[in-house]
Structures are given as structure tokens and as C-alpha cells.
């Protein structure tokens, strides 16, 4: 690889012209990042359709080794970058988290495609995790289904720019130089459904609530509960539409139930009802105008 030292020159300190190809004056962070960004080794790890485009990106036409993603390693212990290329299922997320824990720091995660970013077209499925970021910290998201090789390259370059911005002077940027070994991400457990150990408390509370026969959102009877909320919202809409439209007519209260997301739900419903009421008002005005 041809080393362009000029690229590294980062100070105002003048380097004599005749020495430009031999000497560079730069900061330690920049030198360190320059080395890292140009030698990212992705893990050879394909999940689904996106993996095919990842292979196409690695092959001669697009060739990501031009950017330093030269060597794909099949073992996590030699990899810096995990490209989550495809749908993450509940069954697969267990090995993925384990693989991530086996990667040495510094390590990065790139979520390739709609599925890895947020569940994608399969999100509603019962075995699909809606996005890798539910379990691992994701650095770069690449949209697309699947992303074209160009898009993946763009995502990889974005990751390089992220690395450029990190500084070894800042402990938050380089947590891998902290004291002691890094905390591994807890590996999910396949029980009756997938169980994230970080949600144990919530599950315990749910189980206790179930024992006292208090239905909580998030339990098995969730769909029925959803329907209940939806039905109530519908009657509320009917009332709101029937009522004369002014600001106060919409001040009904939706059943909240004291769950953490009920508030957000409440606000969203109100916003929606207001929009519907406006729409109804417009329609009635239009009808009136046509009548005249």
C-alpha cells in the first residue's frame, strides 16, 4: 500500500518540501486511528439475503479491500467489525451475542439492511428480533433491502469516519482502555420466548402481576388488550367526531393503566384524534360549501 504521509500531516508545523515523503508530524490519536481505519477486519458471517450482497461487495467488481476491509475472518477472535447482514431471529440472536462477546476490543457493529436495522419486512414475525440494536450497540446502519454493494461501501466509509473522530485522549471514545476486562453483553436465553437477561426484573414483575390476576400489557393476552384499547379509541373517535369541534371537546382520558409507555400512547392517541377531528371538520365544511 502506498503510504501517503501528507494525509497524516495534521499540524501547522512546517515539514520541508524535500522531506514530505519521509516525515509527517501528527497527533497520536490520528496516527492510531489512521492505522485502525485502514485495517478493519470484518467477520465472515452471513445471515440472510444481505450476505449475498456482502459477498458481491467483497468480490472483484466492488472490492472493499480498496478501503482496508481486506481480510474477512471466520473467527470472531480476529475480527474488528461485525457486519450483521440479514434478519436476526430469536434463535440466532443467542449465537450472535456470543460471537460479539468473543470479539476483542475495539469492536464495531454494522447493521446491514432493513432487517438488521429494525426488523425489516419480517418484523411482525414471531421469531424475528426487531433490529440488532435491541441486543448490541450498533455503530452504523445501512438502509436497503438488501442494500446495494455501493450502499454497503458507503456504510463502511461512514464507519471509518466515525473512527477518525475518536480520540484516545477521551475515555468515552475508547472505552476499551478502561480498567479491567469489558463487561460482556448478557447472552439471551431461549425459554418460552426469548428472554433478555436485562429484562429479568420486568418479567418478574409481570409474573407477580399475573399471579394477582392483574392483566398487564405485554402478557400473552396482549392482542386482546390491544383490541380493547383500539375499540375504546374508536368509540372515543366517534364521540369526538360527533361533538362540536373545539379544543376542549377532546379532553377525554384514555385508559392508561400506569405502564411506562401508556403516557406516550396517550399523547399519540390524542394527536391522532385531533387530526381526525380536523379532518371531519374539513369534510363537513366541504359538504356545507357544496350544499350552498
Amino acid at each position, binding site marked *: 500500500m502506498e503510504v501517503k504521509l501528507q494525509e497524516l500531516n495534521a499540524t501547522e508545523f512546517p515539514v520541508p518540501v524535500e522531506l514530505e515523503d519521509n516525515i509527517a508530524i501528527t497527533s497520536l490519536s490520528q496516527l492510531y486511528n489512521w492505522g485502525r481505519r485502514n485495517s478493519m477486519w470484518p467477520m465472515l458471517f452471513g445471515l*440472510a439475503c444481505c*450476505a449475498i450482497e456482502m459477498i458481491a461487495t467483497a*468480490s472483484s467488481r466492488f472490492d472493499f479491500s480498496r478501503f482496508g476491509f481486506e481480510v474477512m475472518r471466520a473467527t470472531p477472535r480476529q475480527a474488528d467489525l461485525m457486519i450483521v447482514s440479514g434478519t436476526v431471529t430469536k434463535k440466532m440472536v443467542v449465537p450472535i451475542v456470543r460471537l460479539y462477546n468473543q470479539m476483542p476490543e475495539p469492536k464495531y457493529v454494522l447493521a446491514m439492511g432493513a432487517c438488521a436495522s429494525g426488523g425489516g419486512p419480517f418484523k411482525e414475525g414471531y421469531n*424475528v428480533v426487531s433490529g440488532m440494536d*435491541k441486543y448490541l450497540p450498533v455503530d452504523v446502519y445501512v438502509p436497503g433491502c438488501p442494500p446495494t454493494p455501493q450502499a454497503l461501501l458507503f456504510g463502511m466509509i461512514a464507519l471509518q469516519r466515525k473512527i477518525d473522530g475518536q480520540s484516545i485522549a477521551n475515555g468515552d471514545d475508547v472505552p476499551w482502555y478502561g480498567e479491567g476486562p469489558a463487561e460482556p453483553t448478557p447472552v439471551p436465553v431461549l425459554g418460552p420466548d426469548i428472554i433478555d437477561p436485562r429484562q429479568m426484573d420486568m418479567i*418478574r414483575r*409481570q409474573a407477580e402481576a399475573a399471579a394477582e390476576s392483574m392483566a398487564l400489557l405485554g402478557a400473552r393476552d*396482549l392482542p386482546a388488550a390491544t383490541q380493547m384499547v383500539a375499540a375504546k379509541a374508536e368509540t372515543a373517535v366517534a364521540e369526538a367526531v360527533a361533538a362540536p369541534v373545539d379544543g376542549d371537546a377532546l379532553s377525554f382520558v384514555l385508559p392508561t393503566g400506569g405502564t411506562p409507555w401508556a403516557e406516550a400512547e396517550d399523547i399519540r392517541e390524542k394527536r391522532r384524534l385531533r387530526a381526525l377531528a380536523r379532518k371531519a371538520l374539513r369534510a363537513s365544511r366541504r359538504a356545507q360549501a357544496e350544499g350552498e
Partner: protein
Amino acid sequence: METLAPAPAAPLTATSIDEALDYLKTAHPHAVKADDRDGYQGIIIDADSLLELAQVIRDDLGFDYLSSATAVDYLGEGDHMEMVYHAYRSSGGSALVFKAQTDRENASIPSLTPVWRGADFQEREAWDLFGIRFPGHGNLKRILMWEGFSGHPMRKDWREAYYEEEQKPFDSRWPGGHVHRSEEKNVFGKNVSYPADIDLGRLADTSERAVYQSLGLGVDVERIMDKDGFETNELVVNMGPHHPSTHGVFRMVLTVDGETVTSLEPVMGYLHRNHEKIGERNTYLHNIPFTDRLDYISSMGNNHGYVLAVEQLMSLGRRYNPPTYRCEALRVLMVELSRIVNHLWAIGFWLNDIGAFFTPVLYFIQERERIMDFFEAVAGSRMMCNYMRFGGLFGDLPERIKSVSNLTNDRVRDYNTMQFLTEMINERIPRTIDELELLLTQNEIVIERSIGVGVLSRDEAINCSAAGPLLRGSGVAYDIRRAEPYSIYPELDFDVAVENAGDMYARYQVRVKELRESVRILRQILPRLEATKGQSIWADGKVGAYAPRVPLGEAYGRVENGKGELGYYIVSAGGRNGTSNPWRYHVRAPSFINLTPLGAMSTGHKVADIVGILGSIDIVLGETDR
């Protein structure tokens, strides 16, 4: 006067489907009745005599190939579970459809694995997703979900965490709805209620134990003591789901004695993304882009199978026009190009597995890139083409296309489409195949590594419902394009590639031959495209293209895809429940069923050969796990 039974016009194994059904009905009047529901076909067999009659169907009537076995949940439509079997003759012809019914509670239907081993995985899938037990099945455990999962998700009354409504389009979004995200209501995506006495401290993953249970772990001391000479330890090796040679997230658990494999257990479901459950919520049109993501190497072929199945149903109704000739020609063009991509990819990655790491693949990917350029120009996307529609296509060929012609630089060039196609079909692809053959067919290492490895006998291949190059490599000349022709294949001139050895090398040869046959077909398609230039791809406007009226009934549409027989079993409620969604949408995936004989094929070979054998079957996980 005594009436004589009419003498059969032909031996039973050569009867037509109707005659065969009549024979079954007269010979077993108590166990067999005709399926006279509207739009349904075949017979319903009493579950108690299913096994006995399956034997008759296979041995006496000659339907030796069980293509598809799947379950349907008729909740609210009779409240029973039904297993639907499609059996074919390996000499060709259409399907004998037979069904068996059971109650939804304690559903149980005798296993057909003693008759057709090909039912093995499909019955396990029906147990996993529908909760039907199969007495007589030796290894009935979950196959796609993990052991310990709560419920059987494909049942109609099982609802996923992000459940919103039974069927799309959801009221919240259309018409005039607003954006509503189900995960806002259920932020953690959970739909399980945990028992109050759940002991989270001792919660352990039991799914792994189930995998290893059937392997008979532990050392059989007597057997080791019996051996003379070498004393080798038996151990269990786990390959996958993260393994560079398993073609995705497939997993194999091997027991090895030294270097020799003594048993192999495939474990799958790591990419089970609920294709069928989502497909039953979707409208018919919604499903086309989802089929792209089944066998993501050859998405055009997946589209074709699905539209054929739906068209088969639509043709029962009144408002249906079959596709025009140009449309059919374009479909064949796309499908054959996909087959070329698929086989190049399969051969390339098989070479990876037997040791030629990545260099040969690069040459094949280069060729694939050109075809991808063409797909992108025509359908708008490289891989996920979403190109075919019911009774037509997304669009005609563009006048000109842009492509990177030489891969040494990134210069994009502008071509006339027909010229681009002609050059690709007449020159580039044949040249690639010649080069491939020159370097590989007589290559000493390829021959040494592959001849005699992973042998699958003819009878076993049929019995295991193997399909595609795996079946034809074992000496069965069964290609759906000839056995039960569809589209314009009857008028095209091509041969069915077949090899008799049944080993890895034979499968490789079948693929090379099929590449050549595909080129031969494409050469016949080009003049047909020229001749039909200007003809519409839609028969009569776009009637039914975007909101197809699918009448009541069932259909099984199947195509010869690159990996084998891809079938879609679709049950339509015919709008009876006020919707236009499939009641049942099942994909008979060749990659899934072709894995049935993997264990038998691998036993006795060395660990290093296992990946090669798997590569020679050619699976893709999107289709295996769906």
C-alpha cells in the same frame, strides 16, 4: 345377472389421476371419500387407514414421489386440522392429492415416514408450527423453532407479539389511516405470560439439550473395547450456525469416530422468519416481494412459482386472462437467467467447500454481476426483483440499459437491451461455461475429492423427496419443466440433464449440463422476444393484477427452480371472510426437503467431506428456514 368388473385399460401404475382416485374409492369405500368442497381436489382418507393406503398409493398405483406434505388449520371453517399430501409419479404427470383430517385438540395423524422418508422434515414442521402429532415418527421434535417455545405459531388462533389484525391491509393504515406502530404498544415485543412461580435464577436454555438428546452421547465402552488396534474416541462436533461453509446459518451436529462421521443431525431454524404466517396476513399481491426473499439467489424463479399457483386459482374464476405470449417468453428469459446465476453460484461455493477458496467464485460472481445489471435495469432491483404479477409482469424490457461492461474499471456503458442480451447469451455465458469446464471437469483434485463421495442412490433419492440436481444426479430424469410442463416450456427444445452416479461429481455435472441447457433455451427465447416486440405483456388491461379476485379453492403451483422443485400450496377462502388474503400459504422449499438424506449421505465420510456434500446439495437458508 352378475356384472363383471370392467377390466382395467392399463396397469394400475399407468392409470390417470381420475382412474387412480376411482380405484381408491371403490377399493376402500369406507376409508376414502372424495373431497367435494368447492374448488378442492383429491380425496380425504380416514386417518386410521392412512398408512395402509399410502402404501397402496406408492406401491400399487406408482405414486412414488411425495412432493409436499403440509398442514392446514381450518379454524372456524369446520374446526379441524388437515394434512395435505401431493404425491407424484417419478415418471411424470400430475399430482394425486390426498388429505387426512383430525381434531384441533390433541391433533394426531399417523406418520408417513415408513412409506416416504421425504415426509420426515415436513411432519416435524407440521408438529412444530401446527401442533399435530405424528405417531410412528421416530424423531418428532421441533425443527424451526426451539424446543421449549410456547405454542404452535401457525395455528390460526396463535397471535404474535406484534399482532394487529387478522389480515392486511390494517384498518389503522388504509384507507385514510395514520401510521401506527405495533411495537409502540408492545415495546419489548413480548407475548408470553410467565407463571408466577417462574424461577428466573434457575432459568436455563433447554433448547440445546434437546438437540443433543437423540445423539446418544456418552462413550460406548464395549464398542471401543471391541475394536482392535487403534483406539479412537468418539466425540461430538458442532458445525454452525456460524461457520463459513454452511452457506448461511445452518447447523450440523456430528458425532465423529476419529475423523469419520458416524452420525449427523441437521439443526435449522436460525433464519426462520415466519414467511408463512406473514404470508397469511398479507394480501396476494403483498406476497410477491416476500417470495423474492426465499431463495434469494434466484428471486425470479420464486416469483414464477407463486404467480403460477395464484393464476391456477384465478383461472377457476370468471375474470381471468392468461398471460400473453410475450409475458410468458419474458418469464422464461428471467427464470433461465436466474438458473444460470444459481448454478454458477452453487458450483462456485461448492468449490469453496472442497478447498478452492474463493478464487473460482470470483469469476462466477463477475458473470452474475452482468445478469444483475440486467435485472436491475428491468425490475429496478439487483437481487429482489419483485418482477412478476398475476397475469403479467411488472414491466416490459427497457429500450436501453446501462451496465458495467468490463470489470477492470467502473465505467458505465449504455447498450441496446436486445444487443446486450444477445451478446450475453450467445457469447459471454457460453464462454464462462467453457472456461469453467476447462478448469474443473477434468481437474484432478475435483475428481479425487468428489467421485464416490456423498452417494445417494436412485431409490433413496425418490423416497427422500429429493429434488433438482440432487435428484437428477442420482439417475432420475425428473424435471418439472418436462414432467408437468408449465409456461411455454413444451414448445422449447431442451434436454433433461441427468447423471447416474449419485455422488458429488454427478451433481456438479448435472449443474454444468443444465447451464448449457439454459443457454440453449435462452437462444430460443431471443427470436421469440424479437417476434413479439410491441405486444402487450398484459392480456386485457391489467384486470386482476393489483387486486386479484381469487375464487374459493386450493392450488399447488410448482416450478423447477435452480435448487429443485419449488411449490406453493395456497388455499383461498375466496373472499368468504370478506378479505382477499390466502387462508393458507405454504412453500414447499427444495432446500429444506433436500436436507432429508444429508445424514445418510454423510455417514462414513470424513469431516472435511461434509461441507462438500452440503455444498453439492446446494441449499440457501432463506428457503430452508423460510
